[in-house]
C-alpha cells in the first residue's frame, strides 16, 4: 500500500517480527526470581457481608507463604481510584461485586496458591444485589455506597453516584411538526482482550516497581503513589506492550494491592488473572437512554432531549469521566437549536465499569442514530438525506462555544452511502442501514517526548504511549525518520518505563498520533536546533551558515553525515537530546475541562439479510468511513478501523453479560460469552478514509481507532428494521430477539385495531 505522505515504503510494523516469532514478551511471559504467586479469594455471589475469614487451613498448604486479609492492611484500608479514591485494596465488610477479593494468597507456586485460595474459609451472608438500573433506583433496594462515605453529597442516600446536566437552548421553546420518544438499552459487555490481565510488583529500595500492561503508566503511577501517600518518584511503572487494551487496561486494578504485598513480603509478587477473573474486573458501562427528538416537516431537528442512565458498578473508577464525556455529544453530530442532556452514573453491585473504546459514546449513539432513521421513515425522507439536512458544515458549531465541526462530514456520509450502494435495488429479506458517530478526542492533556541522538547518529525516541496493537511504534518511527532523515533501522522507539520516558497523559481517546506525534516532531525539531547551535558554536560560525536537515549537516564548503558532524561538535563524545511537548490547555468552566482537541467522526453503512423464520442475521457488506485528516500509515489505519467495526458487531449482535439473581455473571468465560469469530464477519468489508489534511496532528492527521464501533449498532439496527420490518431498541440484536420481534409484529398485524409501536413498519416496507 502506497504511503503518499512519506517517501519510500513504510516499515514493516515495528515489533511485528517479535510478534510472529513468539519473541514478544507480554507481562505474563516475564520471569522473576524469588517471586511469590498470588491468587485472589472471592465469593460466589455479587453482594455479601463478610462475617469472618478463616485462613488457618490455607496457611497449612505446602508452598503457601502467606494469606493477607484486610486485618493485615493499614487501617483504614487504603483505597485507590483515578477520580475518587473509593476502591479498597480488599473488600471492606462487604463485597460489592462478583469477583471482588476478600483475601489474597501468596505461594511459591501457582498450584499452591490455587489450593491455598480454595482452602480459605469465608463465612459470609449473601445480601440482595443491585444489578440493574431499576434495582438501583428502587428505594427498597440497598445502597451500594455507604452514605458515610459521601458527606455533603445530595445523592448520598441514593444509588445515583452523580448527575450531569448539559446542553444548550430551551427545549420548551422548540416547535416541532412531530416528536419521537423511545427508550433504548445498551448491554453490559466486556473487553475480552485476548491477553488476560497480569501484574507484578517488586520492592525497589523504599518504593516499588510495578509491571502492568497498562495503557496509561503515568496515571497508574499517580494512583499508586496517592494510595500510599508516596512521592511519584517512589513508584516505577514498567508497562509491557499490552495484548489488547481497548480501555480495559487503562485504569488501575490490583497494582496498589501488589505494591503493598511486595513491600510486606520483601519479594516480587505476581498475579495473573484467569480470563474469567478478567471478565469480573473490566467491562463497559451499560446504559438506558430515553431519547426524545423533535423534527420539523423537512426533517430538521428542532430539539433533542436525551436522558441516559449508565450503570457504572460498585466503585467510581473512571466512570464519571466516561459518562460526562460520552454525554457531551449525546445529541449526536447535528446542528440542533435546543438540546437538553441529563446523564447519571448509577451504582450497582457489579463489576466497576471502565473505559472501553468509544468511552460512553456508543451507548448514546445507539438511540440517537436509530431515532434519526425512524424519523426519516416517518417523514418519507431517505435516512442519508435526513442526516445531510442536520449535519454541521465545516467550522460550524454543533455543540455551542466549543470546538466546531472540524471535518467535511458530508463527504464522510456520502462516501459511506456510495460504497454501500445505497440507491441500488435490494433483494428480499435484505436491509441497509447507515449511522454516524462523533466522539471528542483528548481535552486537557499533554504529551512529552524526548529524542536522543546518540554519538553515531542513531536515535532513541522516548515516549509514554502504549503500543497495544494500534502500531504507535511504527508511526513514530516514520515521523522521526522523515523529520531527521535517519533510516528506520537506526531509530528505536522506547516506551513503557516511567523512569525512562517523559510524561504522557494516556493512550486513549485516539490521541496518540496527534499529541505524541506532534510532541515527537517537536522533540526532533528541538534536537536539530540544538545540533545546529552546537555546530555553530564549535566551529565558531554564524547560525545561518549551518543547516541540519535530512540526515545531513551542511556548513560552508562541506556536507557531513550526522555521525561525522557529531564528532565535530561533541569533542568529548556525548549525545544531543531534544525535548518536545504538545498540549491542549484546560479551559475554565468547560464541562470537559477543555475544548476537544479534535473530533473523531465516522460513518458506518451495512447491508444484511435476516432469515425471517429464525431471526438469524447474515452480514453481506460493511462499509466504514473515517475522517482521518491524513493517514500516516494507511495499512495500520485500515486494520484499526476494521477491528473497531468487527468489535462493534459484538455488542450489536451477540455480546452481553448476563447476571443471575445472586449477582453472579452467568456467561463467565469464553464458552458462553460470544465474540465475533472469523466466521462471523461480513462477506465484504470496506474501510475508506477521507483525507483532507485538516487535523491538528502531523501533516494534518487526526486520530483514529474508535470510529466504526461508535455507531455500528444503529446501522445494523436500521438494516434489520428494513429487512425484517421490526424495531428493536435493545442490544444485542440476537437471532432470538429478532425472531421475537417478528412474532410480535405478526401478531399485531393479524389483530387489526391494535396500534403498532411506532407506525414504522408500513413506512419501512415500502422503501
Amino acid at each position: 500500500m502506497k504511503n503518499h505522505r512519506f517517501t519510500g515504503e513504510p516499515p514493516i510494523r515495528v515489533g511485528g517480527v517479535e510478534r510472529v516469532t513468539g519473541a514478544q514478551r507480554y507481562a505474563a511471559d516475564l520471569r522473576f526470581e524469588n517471586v511469590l504467586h498470588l491468587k485472589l479469594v472471592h465469593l460466589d455471589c455479587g453482594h455479601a457481608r463478610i462475617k469472618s475469614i478463616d485462613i488457618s487451613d490455607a496457611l497449612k498448604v505446602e508452598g503457601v507463604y502467606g494469606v493477607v486479609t484486610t486485618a493485615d492492611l493499614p487501617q483504614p484500608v487504603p483505597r485507590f481510584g483515578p477520580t475518587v479514591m473509593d476502591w479498597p485494596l480488599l473488600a471492606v465488610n462487604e463485597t460489592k461485586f462478583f469477583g471482588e477479593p476478600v483475601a489474597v494468597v501468596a505461594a511459591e507456586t501457582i498450584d499452591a496458591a490455587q489450593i491455598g485460595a480454595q482452602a480459605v474459609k469465608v463465612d459470609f451472608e449473601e445480601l440482595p444485589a443491585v444489578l440493574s438500573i431499576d434495582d438501583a433506583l428502587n428505594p427498597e433496594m440497598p445502597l451500594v455506597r455507604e452514605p458515610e462515605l459521601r458527606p455533603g453529597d445530595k445523592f448520598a442516600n441514593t444509588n445515583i453516584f452523580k448527575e450531569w446536566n448539559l446542553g444548550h437552548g430551551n427545549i420548551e421553546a422548540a416547535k416541532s411538526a412531530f416528536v419521537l420518544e423511545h427508550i433504548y438499552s445498551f448491554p453490559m459487555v466486556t473487553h475480552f482482550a485476548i491477553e488476560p490481565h497480569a501484574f507484578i510488583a517488586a520492592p525497589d529500595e523504599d518504593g516499588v516497581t510495578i509491571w502492568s500492561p497498562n495503557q496509561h503508566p503515568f496515571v497508574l503511577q499517580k494512583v499508586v503513589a496517592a494510595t500510599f501517600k508516596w512521592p511519584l518518584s517512589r513508584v516505577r511503572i514498567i508497562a509491557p506492550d499490552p495484548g489488547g487494551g481497548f480501555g480495559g487496561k487503562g485504569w488501575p486494578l490490583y497494582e496498589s494491592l501488589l505494591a503493598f504485598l511486595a513491600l510486606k513480603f520483601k519479594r516480587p509478587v505476581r498475579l495473573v488473572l484467569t480470563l474469567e477473573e478478567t471478565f469480573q474486573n473490566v467491562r463497559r458501562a451499560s446504559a438506558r437512554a430515553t431519547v426524545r427528538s423533535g423534527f420539523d416537516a423537512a426533517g430538521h431537528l428542532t430539539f433533542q432531549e436525551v436522558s441516559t442512565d449508565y450503570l457504572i458498578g460498585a466503585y467510581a473508577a473512571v466512570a464519571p469521566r466516561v459518562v460526562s464525556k460520552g454525554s457531551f455529544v449525546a445529541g449526536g453530530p447535528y446542528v440542533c437549536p435546543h438540546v437538553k442532556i441529563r446523564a447519571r452514573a448509577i451504582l450497582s453491585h457489579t463489576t466497576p465499569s471502565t473505559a472501553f473504546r468509544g468511552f460512553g459514546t456508543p451507548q448514546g449513539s445507539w438511540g440517537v442514530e436509530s431515532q434519526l432513521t425512524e424519523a426519516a421513515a416517518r417523514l418519507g425522507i431517505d435516512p442519508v438525506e435526513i442526516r445531510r439536512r442536520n449535519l454541521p458544515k465545516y467550522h460550524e458549531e454543533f455543540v455551542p462555544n466549543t470546538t466546531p465541526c472540524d471535518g467535511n462530514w458530508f463527504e464522510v456520509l456520502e462516501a459511506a452511502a456510495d460504497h454501500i450502494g445505497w440507491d441500488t435495488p435490494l433483494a428480499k429479506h435484505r436491509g441497509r442501514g447507515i449511522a454516524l458517530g462523533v466522539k471528542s478526542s483528548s481535552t486537557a492533556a499533554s504529551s512529552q517526548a524526548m529524542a536522543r541522538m546518540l554519538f553515531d547518529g542513531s536515535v532513541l525516541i522516548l515516549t509514554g504511549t502504549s503500543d497495544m496493537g494500534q502500531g504507535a511504534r511504527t508511526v513514530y518511527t516514520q515521523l522521526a525518520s522523515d523529520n531527521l532523515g535517519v533510516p528506520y533501522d537506526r531509530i528505536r522507539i522506547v516506551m513503557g518505563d516511567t523512569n525512562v520516558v517523559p510524561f504522557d497523559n494516556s493512550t486513549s481517546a485516539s490521541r496518540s498520533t496527534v499529541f505524541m506525534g506532534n510532541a515527537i516532531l517537536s522533540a526532533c525539531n528541538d534536537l536539530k536546533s540544538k545540533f545546529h547551535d552546537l555546530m555553530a558554536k564549535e566551529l565558531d560560525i554564524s547560525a545561518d551558515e549551518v543547516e541540519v536537515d535530512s540526515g545531513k549537516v551542511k556548513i560552508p564548503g562541506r556536507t557531513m553525515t550526522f555521525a561525522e558532524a557529531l564528532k565535530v561538535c561533541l569533542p568529548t563524545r556525548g549525545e544531543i537530546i531534544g525535548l518536545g511537548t504538545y498540549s491542549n490547555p484546560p479551559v475554565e468552566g468547560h464541562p470537559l475541562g477543555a475544548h476537544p482537541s479534535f473530533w473523531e467522526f465516522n460513518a458506518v453503512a451495512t447491508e444484511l439479510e435476516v432469515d425471517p423464520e429464525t431471526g438469524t442475521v447474515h452480514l453481506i457488506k460493511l462499509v466504514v468511513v473515517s475522517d482521518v485528516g491524513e493517514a500516516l500509515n494507511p495499512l495500520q489505519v485500515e486494520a484499526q478501523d476494521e477491528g473497531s467495526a468487527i468489535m462493534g458487531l459484538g455488542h450489536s449482535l451477540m455480546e452481553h453479560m448476563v447476571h443471575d439473581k445472586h449477582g453472579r455473571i452467568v456467561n463467565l468465560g469464553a464458552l458462553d460469552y460470544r465474540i465475533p469469530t472469523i466466521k462471523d464477519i461480513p462477506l465484504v468489508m470496506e474501510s475508506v478514509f477521507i483525507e483532507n489534511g485538516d487535523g491538528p496532528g502531523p501533516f494534518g492527521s487526526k486520530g483514529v481507532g474508535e470510529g466504526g464501533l461508535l455507531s455500528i449498532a444503529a446501522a445494523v439496527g436500521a438494516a434489520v428494521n428494513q429487512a425484517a420490518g421490526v424495531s428493536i431498541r435493545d442490544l444485542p440484536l440476537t437471532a432470538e430477539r429478532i425472531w421475537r420481534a417478528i412474532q410480535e409484529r405478526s401478531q399485531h398485524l393479524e389483530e387489526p385495531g391494535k396500534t403498532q409501536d411506532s407506525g414504522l413498519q408500513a413506512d419501512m416496507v415500502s422503501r
Partner: protein
Amino acid sequence: MRSFAYARPESLNEALALLNEYGPAATILAGGTDVVVRLRTGRVLPAIVIDLKRVPALHADILETDTRLRVGARTVMADLVADERVRSRFPALAEAAHEVGSIQIRNRATLAGNICNASPAADTAPPLLVYGAVVNLVNATGPRSIPLAHFFKGPGRTAMERGELVESIDLPFAKQRQGAAFARATRRLGVDLATINIACLVKASGQTLFAYGAVAPTPLLVSDDSGKLADANCGEDEKLSILENLIAHTAPISDVRASHEYREALLMVMSRRVLDAAIARLHDQEGLL
C-alpha cells in the same frame, strides 16, 4: 487443578482391570477436550485418570465390512470428517462432526468420547441416531452391544455400567436407498454449542426418522412410518401436523443460550428444512446403499 494419579494402560485387559478397581473414582481420558476442562474446574475430582490412547484394541481407525463401518473408540472428529466413506455414505454424520468445535478440538475429540459425555446437545448424536448406530461395549466379562437409541439415559448419563468401555461404534449400511441431513442453530456463525440440532433421515420406503438434540434430557429419536413426509402429493398442512406430533416428544428448556419458545420455533423451522435436504439427498442417490 487438583492432582490425580495417571495411568496409561497398554492393553484392554489392563484398562478394564483399572476401571474395575477404581470405579467412579476413575475418569477416562481419550481426546480430553471435555475431560481436561472438567478437571480444571473441579467438576470431576478423580483419584486416577486412565488414558486410553495406548490401548491397541481401542484404535483410531474406521474399518469397513460388507454390512457396516466400524469407528474405533479413538477415532477423532477430524478423521471422521475427512473419511470418504463417511462423507458419501453417512453425510449427515460428517456434517455434524464438522461442527464440533474448531479444528483444534476436532483433532483430539473422539466420537466415542462425544457419546459417552452424553450431552443432550452433542452434535454427533442426532445423525448417529438416525443412522441406527450401535455402540460396542466391552467389560471384564466380554463384549456387549447396545443400539445408540438405548444408550443415552439422561444428561451426562449413559447405559454403560461400571467397568465398561466403548470399543467401537458401528454405522450399519442401509438396506434401501436413503437420504439424511443435519442442521443446527447457534448464537453466532462461528464455533458454538448448538442451541438446537436436528438430523433427518428419509428412506426410499418413505419412513422418516428425526433425531433432536438440546431439546430434551437426552438426544431424542422419533420416527414417522406413514410415508407422508416424503410424499410429494401429500399436502403441506398434513406434513406440518405430522412434524408437530413428532416435535411434541421434545421438552425444550430455557437457558443462557435460548428460551424454550425460541427452541420450539426453531424445531419446526429446522425440521422442515432438514427434511427437504434429506429428501433431496434421497433423490440424488443413484442406487448407492
